[in-house]
């Protein structure tokens, strides 16, 4: 089985790797709700972090716990998995400064689906704040103590260094892989990338690195194929619905870069070494391209997008957001204005548990036609 097939299996059975890993290593698995977290510290503790996801199936089971008209469907879908026992194997759950939708999941999970360990890292919202890094470092110190207490063991510098190395390698490899997407001839599609990205959030990162290296080796042997279609950027909130990405692909949209919570945003920016390892980890969280929630007070996302537009020669943007997502919803006008001033059309799609195929087809087809005509 080649690496891409393995990736595909991981994504289709998102709970399998962690369960097998637990049996094999006797280690602990922690569920995480956001890409803004000190994953190196968690990894150094010998814990496997796995991204908590929905199953993209409609449900009614969360009606008594989460107010439907107040919280996004991803949050409800995620929690539905917990209530249905699909995450029985996780030992703990962590919330790191994310949106209130994710916090609702965290709080309800703690209360109604008890786990052995839970922790809220209250990181700064406004990452540009002068004191944000110092504050975050102290939060991470407390988090480290909490992990050590739970595990009954110390997390030493060596373990953290090793974790940083593995994660930085992972980010470099992902950058290389993502880089292939923008080439004229590409061996990988956005569907592949979406699955590769998601798989990394479900398995041990060192194993992910092995798969990435294998994929890069395979790509280097192939000339790829010319991909036609308007060059698209896929932006937005959390979305693990592969059907949508396959759908865009099938309609002729050629995604050359993405920035969404369960896509490339997760792999942005390496940890730059510092004597204080927690400061180094915090530095990455502060400096990486922010999600809309943390992009305060100045808008730095748009300068990141400007860079991507130029590097990847983006012709159109598809902005996918969960229906009740305040962060991406409130940011949309500014993002739309930015792309419009660059003469780049943008299509906004609101997500629910599932993809409304009929509706999306019409809109995406029309969008792509417009891009092709211009």
């Amino acid at each position, binding site marked *: 089985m080649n690496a891409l097939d393995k990736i595909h299996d991981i994504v289709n059975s998102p709970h399998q790797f962690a369960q097998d890993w637990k049996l094999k290593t006797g280690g602990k698995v922690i569920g995480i709700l956001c890409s803004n977290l000190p994953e190196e510290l968690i990894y150094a503790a010998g814990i496997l972090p796995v991204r908590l996801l929905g199953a993209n199936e*409609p449900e*009614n089971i969360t009606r008594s716990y989460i107010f439907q*008209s107040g919280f996004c469907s991803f949050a409800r879908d995620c929690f539905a998995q917990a209530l249905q026992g699909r995450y029985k194997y996780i030992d703990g759950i962590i919330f790191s400064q994310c949106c209130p939708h994710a916090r609702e999941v965290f709080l309800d999970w703690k209360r109604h689906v008890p786990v052995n360990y839970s922790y809220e890292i209250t990181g700064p919202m406004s990452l540009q704040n002068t004191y944000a890094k110092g504050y975050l470092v102290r939060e991470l110190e407390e988090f480290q103590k909490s992990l050590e207490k739970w595990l009954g063991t110390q997390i030493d510098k060596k373990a953290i260094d090793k974790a940083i190395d593995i994660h930085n390698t992972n980010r470099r490899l992902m950058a290389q892989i993502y880089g292939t997407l923008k080439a004229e001839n590409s061996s990988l599609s956005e569907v592949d990338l979406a699955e590769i990205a998601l798989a990394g959030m479900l398995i041990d990162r060192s194993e992910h690195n092995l798969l990435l290296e294998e994929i890069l080796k395979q790509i280097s042997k192939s000339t790829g194929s010319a991909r036609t279609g308007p060059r698209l950027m896929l932006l937005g909130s959390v979305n693990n619905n592969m059907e949508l990405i396959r759908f865009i692909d099938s309609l002729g949209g050629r995604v050359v870069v993405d920035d969404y919570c369960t896509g490339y945003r997760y792999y942005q920016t390496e940890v730059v070494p510092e004597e204080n390892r927690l400061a180094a980890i915090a530095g990455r969280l502060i400096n990486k391209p922010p999600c809309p929630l943390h992009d305060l007070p100045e808008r730095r996302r748009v300068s990141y997008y400007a860079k991507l537009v130029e590097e990847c020669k983006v012709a159109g943007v598809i902005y996918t957001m969960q229906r009740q997502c305040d962060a991406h919803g409130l940011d949309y006008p500014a993002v739309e204005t930015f792309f419009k001033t660059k003469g780049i059309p943008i299509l906004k799609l609101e997500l*629910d548990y*599932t993809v*409304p*195929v*009929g509706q999306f087809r019409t809109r995406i087809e029309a969008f792509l036609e417009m891009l092709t005509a211009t």
Partner: protein
Amino acid sequence: MLSAGIDVGAETTKAVVVDDRRVLAFSVVPSGWETPSSVRTAFNQALKEAGVEEKSITYIGTTGMGGKNTGLEAQYFTDSICNAKGALWSFPKARTVIDIGAEQSQAMTLDGEGRIVQYTRNDQCAAGAGAFLTEMASILELNIGDISRAALLSRNKTTINSTCTIFAESEVISLINEGSDKNDVARAVCDAVALKAAGLLQELKIEKEIIFIGGVAQNAVIADSLKSGIGQEIIVPQEPRLITAIGAARAALTK
């Protein structure tokens, strides 16, 4: 002593005439635009059917969306209170009621006096209510009454995934265009409604007897699917549309 109950719903207006023990007569007419007119039509038909004159009716209770605008000298009660009273009078052991109307779905538990103990209902969205069914029937080119017949003929399991009526509409159209059997899609529509109803009941600590009322309860496939969904027996009255109107009559009498 005779009392009457009028339930003015989004699609139909129901009128009943009851005495202390039973329903003497009823009438169901389309609600239309002119509420007082449809109310008068329904009421007159029920009176005629019962063989009584209006002056022999001691109390009139009204309820439903148009219940405050009937043009009658009557007392208004909320539909949930009427559901509780109507269900309990019809089924003295009723302790849970699930009502799916044209636009609203609600579930409640009651005590032995007919007082509501727990209550929940759908969000302001109408997905899973009668209007959803009507919309889907229209796309399938079926009469609303034929949906359950078609569903019974289903051979292959199909699921409608969307929770939103608008999204579900485009999903059904896609399924048809992709060659899905109409009967299977009809079944999927029924299951979707039952799933929503089951979700409401799951919010409460339900107790037997569970009574399923409202226009949508006339759909046997939905009733059966709901029963499977909650794993308990449910009772569907012979005329599930009338329970609320009966409750209005009882509320007026007992007040």
